[in-house]
């Protein structure tokens, strides 16, 4: 597990989305064209230009009331990172901060990482043909600054610090929530996928927030990794050629369509 992490205490999230805007602001990401679909949650999913967002979920609770649960969704920076295993180009690597990053130069745009991610957090930039996701604000970490989301969060729902201290803090918070009657309160991300550098305190079951209850690296990904690892160079060339051929074909089809219309 990494030495530093973000603790995301979902029970303190009020959905102001300061983090969501701060992420775009710092990382210079363009806005998406969205529509209102019946929830405050927007954009509807993470993408190459939306690296984190706040999920809003409503549930009736046992007391006859309604819980409106909000929490941050973004790359978890897993210890057991499926994307790293899936990437045939070796473009996804673990940084010196213990986070998971995509090396854009090496990325060949095969999108396997996005397909295998148990949290569906990786976006695909079609213009540049690259996978993109949360970088944990590597440039800020390198300059001894907090990640933009943690820096913006008003309530202390997202905090950045030493892993050992934050794990302890998370445990205390869970006890506090349980004492307040939140019997399903728990830490999420300590055991899941080998531990995540985005550790959560949830006041309810993960599914209630829209998290997978049991995230894991797909078995196919592990098998695939075992097979291709010794032959990485060939695999990369083959996949790259395949993609190129596919894109050229698609382009021709597209052009053909344009001609007929």
């Amino acid at each position, binding site marked *: 597990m990494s*030495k*530093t992490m973000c603790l995301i205490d979902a029970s303190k999230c009020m959905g*102001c*989305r*300061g*983090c*969501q*805007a*701060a992420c*775009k*602001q*710092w990382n*210079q*990401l*363009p*806005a998406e064209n969205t529509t209102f679909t019946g929830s405050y949650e927007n954009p509807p999913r993470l993408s190459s*230009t939306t690296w984190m967002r706040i999920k809003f979920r409503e549930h009736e609770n046992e007391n006859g009331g309604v819980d409106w649960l909000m929490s941050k969704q973004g790359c978890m920076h897993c210890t057991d990172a499926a994307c790293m295993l899936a990437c045939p180009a070796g473009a996804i690597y673990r*940084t*010196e*901060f213990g986070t998971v990053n995509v090396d854009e130069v090496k990325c060949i745009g095969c999108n396997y990482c996005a397909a295998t991610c148990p949290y569906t957090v990786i976006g695909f930039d079609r*213009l540049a043909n690259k996978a993109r996701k949360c970088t944990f604000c*590597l*440039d*800020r*970490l*390198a*300059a*001894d*600054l*907090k990640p*933009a989301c943690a*820096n*913006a*969060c*008003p309530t202390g729902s997202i905090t*950045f*610090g*030493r892993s050992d*201290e934050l794990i302890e803090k998370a445990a205390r918070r869970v006890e506090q929530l349980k004492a307040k009657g939140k019997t399903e309160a728990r830490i999420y991300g300590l055991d899941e996928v080998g531990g995540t550098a985005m550790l959560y305190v949830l006041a309810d079951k993960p599914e209630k927030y829209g998290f997978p209850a049991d995230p894991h690296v797909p078995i196919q990904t592990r098998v695939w990794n075992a097979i291709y690892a010794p032959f990485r160079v060939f695999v990369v060339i083959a996949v790259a050629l395949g993609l190129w051929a596919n894109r050229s074909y698609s382009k021709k089809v597209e052009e053909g369509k344009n001609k007929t219309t």
Partner: protein
Amino acid sequence: MQLTRRSFLKLTGAAAATATLAGMGLNTASASAAYPLRIKYTKEVPTICTYCGVGCGIICSVRDGVIVNAEGDPDHPINEGTLCSKGSSIFNVSYIYEEKGKPIVNPKRLTKVLYRAPGASDYEEKDWDWALDEIAKRIKDTRDRTLVETVDVGGRQVTVNRTNAINWLGSAWCTGEENYLFHKMARAMGVINIDHCARL
């Protein structure tokens, strides 16, 4: 100007003690070469968020006279660096990122004096001199025709110097100095219909 100039490259306050990476034996020096900070070598200008009444501090990072980043001021006692979605997006008022991620000037910002003539279906671009003179003429024309100088109050002639023909709507967007002068100007014109967002 008495500013406690602070470099962004230092985390401030209690958080720094535990969160600083160098303090944990991580080699941030090599990392900072690999991942250069985009606001390095910028001038930091403190401002106050223009939205709600909390009055959060924001630091604008300025390079060559242009804001390149705007985020919470960690030295500000109220927000201590934090901001909501509006505050975090304040950069967008001036610049937006087009699809490929290139910053462009927000196309909705007004950059010219505009004039719409009676019955016209569009604006004409004008210069300040023309507009200021024309506005003065409109104010004078309306005021001179409508100013009530005196009224009879219980048999006594009272000087009232007011006009009900001009509305003045001001705003909480404006600074105190601006609003003070707006108030002076409105009262000098004899205006009594004055209001702003405290009621609106």
